[in-house]
């Protein structure tokens, strides 16, 4: 067996172990490399920044435990920016696990401690609404007709934040963070197409290419592009968190992938040459 054939035939266990090591080492010894922010995340940040104090944002937690490592930090950074600007946030969940992500995110934001925010006055969480686009259409159509209580069963009639929020006309920006293509498209369909609302969206990096046409056509004002976008938002808002920490880990692991690609291709080409000759 030639060296090139040996290089293309590394056992799976060795490859997986090397991947594991490439993630553990930078976690133990962070490099602190500088970050370059992407335009899509910058546009998200600018869209929220342009809102005057007191504006109402409808925020959809459309992800679950699978997306939390990537999107959770970005969600936290987004909330930091919104609370910092004294914006009113009506939070909902179109994902089944969204209600379980909410306490994790809020533990990272601590709106009462950091910003003196009051639940019911500055933000409210109406909980999970089944039906994806039906839920979106319902909330944007007539919120008070659909929703009676918040996620803990407290009547929304006792929440001052929702006194003047009946539907799309009373919401200044729709923001969502999701791992689902249906939810990502759904908000563009229901908020932008139906009501011409401003929308910003956060998705996993692998979904960014499919929703980019909405960003290019102005249907989305900004995109939080997975963990990269989350790191950008943490940097822009000045609240460094897990996403910026992950940058170093990504350096090692993605460099390893590049090495694998290079080794795989070079040895493949060389063994082809050997066979030909």
């Amino acid at each position: 067996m030639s060296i090139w054939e040996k290089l293309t035939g590394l056992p799976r266990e060795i490859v997986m172990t090397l991947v594991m090591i490439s993630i553990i080492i930078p976690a133990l010894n962070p490099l602190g490399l500088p970050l370059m922010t992407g335009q899509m995340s910058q546009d998200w940040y600018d869209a929220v920044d342009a809102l005057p104090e007191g504006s109402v944002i409808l925020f959809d937690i459309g992800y679950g435990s699978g997306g939390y490592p990537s999107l959770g930090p970005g969600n936290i950074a987004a909330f930091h920016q919104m609370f910092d600007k004294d914006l009113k946030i009506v939070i909902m969940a179109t994902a089944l696990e969204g209600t379980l992500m909410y306490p994790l995110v809020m533990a990272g934001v601590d709106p009462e401690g950091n910003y003196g925010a009051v639940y019911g006055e500055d933000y409210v969480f109406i909980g999970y609404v089944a039906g994806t686009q039906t839920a979106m259409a319902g909330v944007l159509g007539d919120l008070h007709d659909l929703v009676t209580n918040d996620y803990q069963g407290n009547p929304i009639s006792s929440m001052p934040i929702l006194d003047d929020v009946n539907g799309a006309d009373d919401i200044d920006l729709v923001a969502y963070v999701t791992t689902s293509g249906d939810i990502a498209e759904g908000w563009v369909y229901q908020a932008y197409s139906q009501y011409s609302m401003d929308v910003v969206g956060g998705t996993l990096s692998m979904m960014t290419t499919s929703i980019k046409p909405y960003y290019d056509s102005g249907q989305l004002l900004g995109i939080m592009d997975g963990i990269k976008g989350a790191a950008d938002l943490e940097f822009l808002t000045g609240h460094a968190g897990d996403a910026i920490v992950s940058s170093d880990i990504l350096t090692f692991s993605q460099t390893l992938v590049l090495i694998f690609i290079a080794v795989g291709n070079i040895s493949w080409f060389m063994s082809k040459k050997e066979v030909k000759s």
Partner: protein
Amino acid sequence: MDYKRDIPLAITFLVGVIAIGDYYTGIEAVTQTFNVIKNWGIVLQGFALGLGAVNLFRVHGRRVSARKEGTDWVFSAVLLIMLAVHIVIGLMTGQYEQGETYNWLYNSIYLPISSTMYSSLAFYMAYGAYKVLRARNFDAALLFITAVLVIIGNTPMFPAIYPGFFHMREWIFGPIVSGAYRGVRIGIGIGAVVLGIKTLIGMETGYLGRR
């Protein structure tokens, strides 16, 4: 007339037309009817969420009661026990997923397994990149080139050495991804609309199940 199929098809058509009519017409009666349909739809979706669990009960319940060799019936029993325990804990307290015990179990069991399973594909991506990502021909080379350039642009070390890598990545996501995916998005839109119309007029009946 086969009322078992024709009436559901008529319901699909009627509900769909009202939904479309709400968007394209300003008729108050249509909008109000659609509001009712929306709210009913949300409740029905809640009922639909249980279908998967009921099916699991049936399939794995049969496996456990049969206890055949080589059918992993022990794991099916684990599944059913976990299912039952979580349902009881979730519903018994009246606090549903907000209950302390339910949250504890979620953070101990569901969250770690779900997020790890979702993300452990990273290993397979690395292995696949090593074994399969080859510039075998022109088409594969095109995919290969941008994949490598984007990975380089996404890796913070390379833009830190030379910022041009990041700008190259941004440029790829500019005209190339925008143009191609715009075409894809238009194609998706056409496909979705055609499938939707076919469903509404009764040409697509897969959702009705067996005859």
